[in-house]
């Protein structure tokens, strides 16, 4: 729950971008699409965890 979460997402993004380019150059467009989707799903699960913890803390704080 700190700044390194930002760096983790940036690293995944750049890694997927590089992988995408490499796979596209190697002529495997479908696998490139797969890796992009996989990266998106991973980052989405991390973001959803953070959003749920935000909602829980707001709910307990304002006893919603």
């Amino acid at each position, binding site marked *: *729950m*700190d*700044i390194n*979460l*930002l*760096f983790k*997402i*940036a690293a*995944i*993004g*750049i890694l*997927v*971008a590089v992988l*995408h380019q490499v796979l596209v150059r190697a002529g495997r467009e479908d696998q490139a699409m797969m890796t*992009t989707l996989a*990266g*998106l799903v991973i*980052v*989405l699960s*991390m*973001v959803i965890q*953070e*959003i749920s913890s*935000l*909602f829980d*803390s*707001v*709910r307990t*704080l*304002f*006893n*919603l």
Partner: protein
Amino acid sequence: MEEIIKIIGIGLVALVIIIILKQYKPEYAIYVSIIAGILILFFAIEKLTGIIELLQSISNKTYINQQFLGILLKITGIAFLTEFAVSVCSDAGEKAIANKIEIGSKVIIITMSMPIIKSLLELIMEILP
């Protein structure tokens, strides 16, 4: 003083990361902005706990109805979350969704504040001859 430096630092770091990511993978930029927003909101939430305890202690002393303070806190919480969602949606370019969220939260807030309005009207009725 320490808190504000942390908040500004996170905002600027996220800004730099978003600019880099926008060229290669624009869809990741939205995630980075969401996460930065959440981190900054967590700092705000830590500060809010003290304020809310102060409010509750003051309301215990005075004759303010405890239920109304509960409703006020709920409405503040709803506004807090709605503002977060609206800014994320409009930042991503989806103004329509942002407006729908805004309308929805306004309706919820009005329905929650019905008891307060009702008791206010009753009070006015008593005062008027």
